[in-house]
């Protein structure tokens, strides 16, 4: 494939994929729906019906998911960096 045609194709793909991805992410993160987790919607709800209730965790991270967010960002950034430099991490150094 000629270089010029390849560049146009890459540009076209990015023009379609990136807005779609951003729309999907914003739709799910900003939409007014609560998107209750199955731990609450199923596990805790059915357990409560049978007289068992969840108790507070040993270490309470507080309201919100700031700690989870920090873990995820750190994990994602670390994982991507480790994957990107994988060869340098595992290749033997020349003697």
């Amino acid at each position, binding site marked *: 494939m000629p270089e010029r045609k390849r560049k146009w194709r890459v540009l076209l793909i990015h023009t379609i994929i990136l807005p779609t991805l951003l729309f999907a*992410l914003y739709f799910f993160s900003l939409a007014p729906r609560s*998107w209750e*987790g199955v731990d609450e919607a199923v596990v805790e709800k059915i357990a409560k019906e049978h007289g*068992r209730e969840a108790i507070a965790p040993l270490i309470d991270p507080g309201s919100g998911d700031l700690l989870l967010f920090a873990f*995820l960002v750190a994990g994602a950034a670390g994982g991507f960096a480790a994957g990107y430099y994988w060869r340098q991490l595992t290749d033997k150094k020349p003697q």
Partner: protein
Amino acid sequence: MKRVLLLTVVCLLAATPAFAMHISEGILPFSWALFWYLAALPFVALGVRRLNALGREDLSLKPLVGLLAAVVFIISCMPIPVPTAGTCSHPCGTGVAAILVGPLVSVVIAAVALLIQALFLAHGGLSTLGANTFSMGVVGSLAGWLAFRSARRLGGSLAVSGFIAGTLADWGTYSATSLILTCGIRGEAPLLPLFSKVVLAFLPTQLPLGILEGVITAGMVTLLYKKRPDLLVKMRVITEKELPNHA
């Protein structure tokens, strides 16, 4: 490097309130919590032994196991909304871990990920760690590994086998969670009706999510085959004869 930055930005934009599927702290009575700890313990011990053996054979496998642990940790924290159900849940990641490093090491990876989530993220709990390790670690890993090996023996391609493994690992995990929850909370109620009720409650969310996990697993295995087939040979997922440039 631009792609790394782009993916990191996408992850930042994707930040939403997160929910887990693990059994929360205090849901199981002490006797059942202890039972699942005892049930999971031998698998974790065997996994640690296997991990040490792998490390002795080839030290470079240890960072790979660490990387996979990060993958399982992230995947099993990542809330994915299911529009058909109006709820969200997450894949497990133990299917792909079991394919790459074997089911026993995958149990250790799941146990570590679940421990960190229970300690710092209020996902799952310390009293239910044994139960969650058994469902996600033991059942998820074994289901994924057995499905992958069986599909490969029947002549399935890497992508198809990976898809089946990922899907069954996810569905296996939720089936085990349903059984564990039912046993723990049923009291004098009959087992089967309550078990069916829990499974049916999970179904609208987990049915599509299991298929999505299958797609993710197939994608990861195929990507590894294209980019680093030597790693798959090293981890005995494929033989040298199956390498792309094998004469």
